[in-house]
């Protein structure tokens, strides 16, 4: 289903990575520039390499960007089907997905947006609990070695 909000978000990325499953069953990906058509609810490709000319079928388009400190992260995935339309390939989306679970924005949770951070926490806790319940297991995390590494890094800076 098309999402105008997330289509607008997608336009902010300089490029994306298109992935399909090749005839041998392995994923095959290429970086490309895309154009999102709100009217036709399809995505067209500006500069697909020759490698992709034979690609058809289920596909996903991944968008991701961040700053040089790996903060201000944005992430968006569009799933759908690649089809030949005229002489060109286009992606007909079936799902717009964000890593933060939002249906309207693609920014990853951050301290500056506490409500979004809480939503992400609840989503993560719910999904982790489901994972553990399915496997009938617990998964305690020992933070001692992580805290030791942080102390070592702090002391090595003087």
């Amino acid at each position, binding site marked *: 289903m098309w999402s105008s909000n997330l289509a607008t978000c997608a336009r902010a990325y300089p490029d994306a990575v298109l992935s399909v499953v090749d005839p041998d069953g392995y994923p095959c990906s290429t970086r490309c520039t895309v154009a999102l058509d709100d009217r036709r609810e399809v995505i067209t490709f500006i500069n697909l390499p020759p490698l992709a000319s034979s690609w058809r079928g289920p596909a996903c388009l991944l968008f991701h960007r961040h700053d040089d400190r790996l903060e201000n992260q944005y992430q968006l995935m569009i799933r759908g089907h690649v089809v030949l339309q005229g002489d060109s390939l286009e992606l007909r989306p079936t799902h717009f997905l964000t890593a933060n679970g939002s249906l309207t924005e693609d920014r990853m949770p951050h301290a500056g947006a506490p409500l979004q951070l809480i939503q992400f926490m609840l989503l993560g806790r719910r999904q982790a609990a489901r994972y553990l319940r399915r496997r009938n297991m617990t998964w305690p995390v020992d933070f001692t070695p*992580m805290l030791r590494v942080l102390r070592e890094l702090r002391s090595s800076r003087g």
Partner: protein
Amino acid sequence: MLIQGDARVAESREWTPRSEEHFKLSVLRQPDSRTFIANPLPRRLFTFYFQRLTMTVQPRRILVWPHRRFVDPPTEVLVPGPPIVHVE
């Protein structure tokens, strides 16, 4: 470069030299995360964030586009008995 291969996934439950190396690299690359990890409240609320999976890929085929010239056909390398690549 595109590496295709067969993947298997396992829970990273043990702290190993490899996980220490990855953790150190991650906090060096994302320095603001140190404040988050050092605080006991986020550690308690976001425990799921530290329950990680290790994906191990056995490469089968490597495609290389020299100088990022994607208009050219890639050079293909078949990998019969390859080393294992870890992605965490």
